[in-house]
């Protein structure tokens, strides 16, 4: 009986000590910096290799789950929606030879790719959608990034309640992946406002927060240190990994 009590109490004590010790190490002893070292190892070892699995039509979720920041509620976006996105232009600029401002019909006339891929949320859930649109690589090829350019930053129309706009970024290697897509359609229909209309990014080789919705501008840069909090994306600024392949 004594032994059992001893075992039970030592296990509970060890368990109960774990959470406060870990929390204190992170909050007051800068342990977060140590933990971040794993990200470069993940990026190096996993990186962006191979192709995400492509599914059949029967695998598609008819109601694709909506998550993330709220659909933009500002007057500009409302007027875009009411006019069928006619005034909308997807701007491609920054370190490029040729700046672009692509209208929705122009994007629709470019070569379209269809992919039925799984969206893996960082929270843990997954959903499958049929995405159609323009390869990111094709849009970038039109703009011709300059030598010395390293990243592609996606500026979006949604913002959090504090007014911080959503943005994301990929390096040029990730942006050149054949499945990195500027999606215009979901499940056979034009994107609706809740799913990122008129243009959203799809990066099936990384977690869902990389697949930015409501993209308005693609900026090619050599560094993203001066954008937002400098971590390369809205969620990255909140502590999530820039390399979201795991």
């Amino acid at each position, binding site marked *: 009986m004594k032994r059992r009590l001893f075992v039970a109490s030592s296990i509970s004590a060890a368990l109960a000590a*774990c959470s406060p010790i870990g929390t204190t190490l992170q909050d007051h002893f800068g342990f977060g910096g140590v933990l971040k070292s794993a990200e470069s190892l993940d990026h190096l070892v996993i990186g962006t290799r*191979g192709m995400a699995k492509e599914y059949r039509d029967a695998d598609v979720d008819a109601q694709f789950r909506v998550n993330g920041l709220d659909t933009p509620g500002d007057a500009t976006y409302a007027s875009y929606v009411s006019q069928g996105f006619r005034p909308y232009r997807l701007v491609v600029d920054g370190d490029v030879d040729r700046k672009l401002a692509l209208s929705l019909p122009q994007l629709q006339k470019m070569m379209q790719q269809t992919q039925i891929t799984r969206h*893996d949320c960082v929270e843990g859930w997954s959903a499958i959608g049929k995405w159609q649109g323009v390869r990111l690589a094709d849009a970038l090829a039109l703009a011709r990034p300059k030598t010395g350019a390293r990243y592609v930053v996606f500026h979006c129309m949604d913002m959090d309640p504090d007014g911080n706009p959503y943005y994301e970024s990929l390096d040029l290697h990730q942006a050149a992946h054949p499945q990195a897509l500027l999606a215009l359609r979901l499940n056979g229909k034009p994107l609706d406002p809740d799913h990122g209309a008129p243009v959203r990014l799809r990066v099936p080789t990384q977690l869902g927060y990389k697949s930015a919705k409501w993209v308005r501008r693609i900026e090619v840069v050599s560094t993203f240190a001066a954008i937002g909090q400098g971590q390369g994306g809205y969620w990255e600024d909140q502590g999530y990994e820039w390399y979201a392949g795991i």
Partner: protein
Amino acid sequence: MRPAVHRYSLATRLAHWVWVLAFFALVSSGLQIFNASPQLDASDKSDPARRVLSVDSPQDGKGTTTIFGRTIGTTGWLGWTDDGMGGKGARAFPGWITIPAYQDLASGRRWHLFFGWVASICWVAWLISAALKGTLQKMLLRPRDLRDCLAMQSYYLKLRKTPPPYDTYNPLQKAAYTAIGLVIAPLVVLTGLALSPGIDAMAQPLTALFGGRQFARLWHFAGMLLLIGFFCIHIFQVATQGFFNQMRSMITGWYRPGEHEGGTA
């Protein structure tokens, strides 16, 4: 009293305590990650029709756990628990068992992926060192040990007066170490990797092997339960087979055979 014997090498002792640390960090940060989406489905994409486990808070002040469609009230333990900030809230696992204590998926992931590397690198290093020194060969379960497992179990259950003859490790220990070290721990790592969209793109058959991403998440969780089970039995054995002698041997390496008769933990 017989003279003390040097039972554990420095490499084994070091690896042991690194794994203890990593085990606690991985379980608590893993539960933090689970809390962000407290459902486990036996499917590739999320699918409520194939839900095996879900922890919910149907209303404020109430927590429930649903396993294979059967719902039980778990208020205070699962679903509606301490939020790690002094209050109560809709959280699957309570704050006292997660890292960080409060809801913080980003940090939970950092802890988990960091200690995943620590545990894996330590595992590979120890395996190489143990194989070179011959320790590993002594710990591996061989087909001929299977018969002795039964005899050893009978001995533990006091159905037999003497244990079957064995060298350093008894057949049940060999079975436990082989199962944990070479089957369960690698499976937990592989099922964790199978959750990663980057790994899935690089090695599609791996995720497919476990039945898809959500199914891999379910196996990963089940593997954690097995590791916790091993941990509890292990602690029980250490506590009942000469606790101080056992602890000393895993810290200093020295064990006094006369001090306590019986198996090692």
